[in-house]
């Protein structure tokens, strides 16, 4: 009898717990998945009645799901286009969450120095116009480095990815040729080269192929200790990508009110030029007011305590002024 009673109480308590808990579902970009899951986990520890689930199904899927209203929020590495916004059933706010950067990685036999890339050289390598490492233009940017007479093999991402979007967005800005011939997108028609699946596929191919060059996420390079090149920014300074220089990229940029802004090739003196925000897509007028309130609270927390956790996972935190602007925009979201 006693035992049965205890069991009953247990079940009752568990059941009320389950009922009291509010679950939010989100889906989207894979690049920020580690920091998002860390945030949602920490937030759940603080508020045990709130559970936020996130599926890293890719930016494209995130945009589609948020457009259709099947998730409470989405996430993307590239901002939604005007067309996508006009098609969307749900009005969304782009909320920058963290910053990421893309770095050139290479495997040149006999060269251990950090290779410097000017924007035009980088574009022409990926366009197939510079085909050998001992090209005069590469040597000019790297005095004192002895490049071998080795054919350049370009390695790019084969899967659609935000990394490709950031990299091609940058090349489109610095090279009119690139803009005309290739353009920007999560997948593009590459003029030359091999495709590797994921950061690990590109990095693996680069390690295997002498004379190869490719692009990978800064986080992946830092965590796996992969050496990478230095890129010249718009102030003609050669900047090595780091968390600081990535944050610096977002400092000098004028951020519009809807936060849909590309920060590649920014004006800042110490800015690393191939960087980007990654955004949360938050419905401004959610169907479920209670969930909207929770999401709003979470976003404020994310911009406060949340930003302190990003560097441990090799993400670059948002600059102060962007954070303030975001807080103002979130506060203005329709009150539940």
């Amino acid at each position, binding site marked *: 009898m006693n035992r049965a009673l205890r069991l009953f109480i247990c079940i009752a308590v568990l059941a009320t717990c389950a009922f009291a808990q509010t679950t939010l579902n989100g889906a989207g970009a*894979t690049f920020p998945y580690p920091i998002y899951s860390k945030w949602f986990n920490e937030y759940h520890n603080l508020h045990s009645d709130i559970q936020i689930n996130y599926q890293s*199904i*890719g*930016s*494209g*899927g995130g*945009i*589609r799901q948020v457009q259709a209203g099947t998730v409470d929020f989405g996430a993307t590495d590239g901002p939604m*286009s005007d067309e*996508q916004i006009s098609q969307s059933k749900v009005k969304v706010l782009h909320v920058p969450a963290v910053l990421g950067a893309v770095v050139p990685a290479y495997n040149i036999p006999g060269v251990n120095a950090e290779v410097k890339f000017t924007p035009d050289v980088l574009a022409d390598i990926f366009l197939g116009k510079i085909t050998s490492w001992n090209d005069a233009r590469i040597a000019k940017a790297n005095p004192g480095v002895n490049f071998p007479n080795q*054919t350049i*093999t370009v390695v790019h991402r*084969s*899967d*659609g*990815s*935000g990394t490709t979007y950031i990299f091609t967005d940058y090349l489109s800005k610095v090279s009119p040729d690139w803009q005309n011939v*290739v*353009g*920007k*997108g*999560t*997948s*593009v*028609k*590459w003029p030359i*080269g*091999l*495709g*590797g*699946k994921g950061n690990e*596929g590109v990095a*693996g*191919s680069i390690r*295997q*192929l002498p004379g190869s060059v490719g692009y990978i996420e800064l986080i992946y390079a830092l965590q796996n200790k992969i050496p990478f090149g230095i890129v010249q920014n718009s102030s003609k300074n050669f900047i090595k990508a780091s968390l600081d220089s990535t944050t610096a990229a977002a400092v000098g940029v004028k951020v519009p009110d809807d936060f849909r802004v590309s920060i590649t090739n920014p004006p800042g003196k110490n800015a690393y030029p191939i960087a980007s925000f990654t955004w949360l897509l938050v419905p401004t007028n959610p169907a479920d007011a209670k969930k909207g309130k929770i999401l709003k609270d979470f976003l404020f927390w994310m911009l406060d305590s949340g930003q302190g956790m990003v560097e441990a996972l090799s993400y670059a935190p948002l600059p102060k002024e962007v954070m303030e602007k975001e807080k103002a925009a979130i506060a203005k979201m329709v009150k539940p």
Partner: protein
Amino acid sequence: MPDNVDPMNPPEPLGKLQRSVTAMPPLAQMDQTRKPGQGSAVLQKIRSSQPRSSRIPDATFRVLIALTAVSVFVVVLLVVWELIDKSRLSLHQFGISFFYGHDWDPVNGNFGAMPFIYGTLVSSFLALLLSVPLSIGVAVYITEMCPIRLRAILSFLVELLAAIPSVIYGLWGIFVLAPLLREYVEPFLARTLGWTGFFTGPMYGLGMLAAGIIMAIMVVPVIASITREVMTAVPQNQREAVLALGATRWEMIRMGVLRNARIGIVGGIILGLGRALGETMAVTMVIGNRPEVAKSLFAPGYTMASVIANEFTEATGDLYLSALVEIGLALFIVTLIVNALARLLVWSITGGTPRASA
């Protein structure tokens, strides 16, 4: 083994036996030579002991079984309908030119499936070219020449190959196979067979050749284990009869075993081809993922399954998504055509008797 003897109407045992000696009947008919009358006697005994109401469960059973069979049609039809429905935008935009177009440009919205169709067919064909002789050799050794003790171990190892996840094959392809190909195999092929045009151009290691080899390894267990099963099913007296006529061991295997097992072997090859056509992960890791039609096997390629897996998650535009679904439709059609051709091949081997291949 399917028993196509009508229990109500047992065939004449003598006539069947005579035919089997002269014509070497397909495997499905082998069983009939065993005491054909017995089955129906037992059946009649069971029937007489059961009340007539057993017809109701019988009818229910028949309907249920028919429903399971129909469900296959329904699933296939639903798949085709979904593929056509979701690719309507792209079908409308590009029409038939989608299937022979060479351009794949998501930025400007131009889509053509030719490089992917080509890559799928060539890599699968290459895989079969390499794996069929190998797997038949393995099966012949295991069934005919292998010491009994080694037999179990060998069969186990072959089947173990099938249990390895394809992403592991892909990793092995990037880190072991590709360097090996680049350093040794491709330079050798370029030197000796470069004049054919199939082995020219820059050697990356990654490419169509690597994809074909990886898939060949993945397909071997499928073909080898089916071939082994079929060859084991060939009755011992067939072998003894051929040997008694003075055949050598090779002739015995060729005439006594392989000839009888050929339908099963072709069946195994079709299954292997099915696996090769649909293989995604391992291939995309080693094929180079470049949508172009190149004659050289050193050049990178792309397959239909790979491009869907690679680009679907991040595809945003409606036309882009629709084109990817149409690639799925193309894969479906190609699989259908290839399977139909294979079936025709079986029929031609069995001498135009479609029933025997069923």
